[in-house]
């Protein structure tokens, strides 16, 4: 793998020339894909350790893969969370709604209704099942692909679309890039476009909760690529130093835009193993197995609530679509990866499990899919009454200058007056203030 220079930079000695290793993914566009090198243990094999176990006793969990749903569509082993059918159906319904929502919003961007969108196709379980394992008032610090949390917590999808359209009903006043939601009411932190910044913030929130003797815990999500950011390592240090009640979820979807996980260190070890150096519990879980995700999250939440410390969970999954509407993965990875991915699709797997249990059938599945599509369609129509991006129905002009500070200082008052003057020239017919 080493990339050696053709001739050494300096002659005259007999030491071997040093060589730089630049990681390269196994498959590029057009390549046949073979994932047989991935170690996928059978579902149900792993024991479930006590939630207060010392990290040094459970180091193996950072290198293995917790799996519950087997190829036989049954739940196996000690990690089976044994959820009742109603909860399983709700989980399936949330994931189906997320997928339907993503489909429609992606299309909306292509139709020019907004500037940008990001799907989470194939990763729905890592936010939906994870959020369901938390209490609804546990604080979450998501990254940009956790729309499933808002769906689980009942945030109105029409408000999500208003935000995506940056229209006059956008609760964030048209200030944020689409999908950078925020909802204090749903204990959902404001999403940042700068990666991994949410990690130390989640730790700080958890520290505050512990300082105050509260019972709520915090959880954060980041991609495997951004574990390379200093913020992630600061978060791990603070989380363990203060034994903060926090869960750090690393969504290893294999790709950070066009850079494969090797550029974040995946050639050397797992992301869950990052926990071990900090003396933190680390779990590695099949991220396309909603039951395994739920179980791992529940374990970590119980651990945090028992003052037994933070947990890092690596969700091993696959980004089935492009990074965003601005990305075309055909330019850098093999299109066969998605179909060959050995852990399947999280929605299909849970659906088959419910059918196997006799609690679901294809008829109900078809009805549910139709219902999701109809709900999203209706919400989209509702949101479009408030405008789409670039068509004038945005928040009033003066809101541009509000909330920079709690009070408007003189220099922003002067600049606001300038903006109002400009408006009369740029848009003479405009009536709004």
């Amino acid at each position, binding site marked *: 793998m080493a990339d050696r220079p053709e001739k050494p930079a300096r002659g005259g000695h007999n030491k071997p020339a040093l060589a730089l290793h630049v990681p390269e993914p196994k498959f590029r566009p057009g390549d046949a894909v073979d994932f047989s090198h991935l170690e996928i243990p059978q579902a149900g094999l792993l024991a479930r350790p006590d939630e207060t176990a010392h990290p040094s006793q459970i180091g193996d969990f950072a290198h293995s893969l917790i799996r519950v749903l087997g190829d036989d569509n049954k739940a196996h082993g000690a990690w089976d969370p044994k959820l009742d059918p109603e909860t399983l159906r709700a989980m399936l319904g949330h994931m189906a709604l997320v997928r339907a929502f993503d489909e429609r919003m992606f299309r909306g961007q292509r139709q020019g209704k907004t500037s940008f969108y990001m799907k989470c196709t194939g990763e729905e379980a890592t936010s939906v099942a994870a959020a369901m394992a938390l209490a609804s008032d546990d604080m979450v610090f998501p990254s940009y692909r956790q729309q499933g949390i808002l769906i689980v917590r009942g945030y109105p999808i029409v408000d999500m679309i208003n935000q995506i359209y940056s229209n006059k009903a956008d609760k*964030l006043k048209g200030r944020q890039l689409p999908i950078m939601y925020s909802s204090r009411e749903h204990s959902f932190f404001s999403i940042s476009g700068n990666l991994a910044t949410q990690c*130390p*913030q989640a730790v700080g929130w958890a520290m*505050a909760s512990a300082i105050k003797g509260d019972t709520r815990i915090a959880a954060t999500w980041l991609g495997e690529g951004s574990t390379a950011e200093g913020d992630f390592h600061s978060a791990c240090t603070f989380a363990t130093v203060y034994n903060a009640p926090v869960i750090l979820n690393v969504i290893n979807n294999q790709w950070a835009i066009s850079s494969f996980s090797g550029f974040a260190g995946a050639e050397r070890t797992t992301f869950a193993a990052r926990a071990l150096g900090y003396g933190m519990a680390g779990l590695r879980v099949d991220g396309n197995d909603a039951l395994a995700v739920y179980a791992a999250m529940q374990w970590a939440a119980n651990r945090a609530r028992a003052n037994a410390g933070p947990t890092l969970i690596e969700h091993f999954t696959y980004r089935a679509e492009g990074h965003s509407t601005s990305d075309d993965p055909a330019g850098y990875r093999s299109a066969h990866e998605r179909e060959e991915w050995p852990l399947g699709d999280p929605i299909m797997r849970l659906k088959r499990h419910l059918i196997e249990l006799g609690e679901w059938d294809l008829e109900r599945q078809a009805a549910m899919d139709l219902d999701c599509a109809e709900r999203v369609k209706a919400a989209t129509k509702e949101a479009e009454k408030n405008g789409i991006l670039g068509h004038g129905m945005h928040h009033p002009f003066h809101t541009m200058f509000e909330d920079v500070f709690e009070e408007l200082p003189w220099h922003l008052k002067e600049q606001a007056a300038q903006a109002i003057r400009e408006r009369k020239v740029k848009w003479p017919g405009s009536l709004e203030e």
Partner: protein
Amino acid sequence: MSAAVKQQGAADAADTERRLNMIEAINEALDIMLARDPDVIVMGEDVGYFGGVFRCTAGLQEKHGKTRVFDTPISECGIIGVAVGMGAYGLRPVPEIQFADYIYPGLDQLISEAARLRYRSACDYIAPLTVRSPFGGGIFGGQTHSQSPEAIFTHVSGIKTVIPSTPHDAKGLLISAIEDNDPVIFFEPKRIYNGPFSGYYDKPVEPWKRHKDSAVPEGYYRIPLGKARIVREGEAMTVLAYGTMVHVAEAVCRAKGIDAEIIDLRTLVPLDIEAIEASVRKTGRCMIVHEATRTSGFGAELSALVTERCFFHLEAPVERVTGFDTPYPHSLEWAYFPGPVRIGEAIDKLLKD
């Protein structure tokens, strides 16, 4: 009439004999706020048991407990990052960055997160943190313990930048900063922690107790952010300064017998533009003094504002006296420092016609 608060320290001096240096005044402000507000948290490298490398947090952990005042890992990114999260929870964190020169690893958390949180979340979340940090040179700290990076923060929308120059102001401004619901950078000029500084580095150090503004009232009081202080009224010229340079400029004007109006800005953002305009319109001449590097320094902003708003009152071009655009040199510290010679030259230039 300017909105600036005139000689506030001097007025209080008559009421009390109590004299504090800047460190004691800052310590007292933190102590008062820890006692008044259970949501105030003080944290930073070495601030807990030990009480801080400059002693600003001495005794606070013992008095208020380990979960209110505590040491942190050596990670400025982590310190600011967890402070943002604590603010989102509802606490009012007061992190210390041991030297302003160390603040850069925390810049993403300050600039992209703390400063933008209120705006981007449409008031869902705020970041009411006060980041205290000693800044400035004159202590042979070399290039990593001497910098004045205030202009980095004044350039960022959503952050307030506050710099006291006396014990009296340090206490009242710090209390206001902690109570403020926006993120505040509170730079403490470490050269004057223990006494005002004339700029004549070879003269004996003056202790604070001989300075009128070391009279610090007991208990809680606030000095509003965004209000300058007129240190000395005068007619010949306006001097705009903050931190250590207030004292240096004052000493030089005194030594040269210049009837200058000296304005201690105290808050750079939001700036007390009324006080500046009123003074420059009166004197017709303006000198700006700061220790930070020159290019794109805060003096450039001040010079532009004075020129834009007071041009027809000016009788001479605005003068800027600053540090040089080099790293802060260790052995040549006093060659770098914008002291009496550089200030004197600017005064002469400003008054020559």
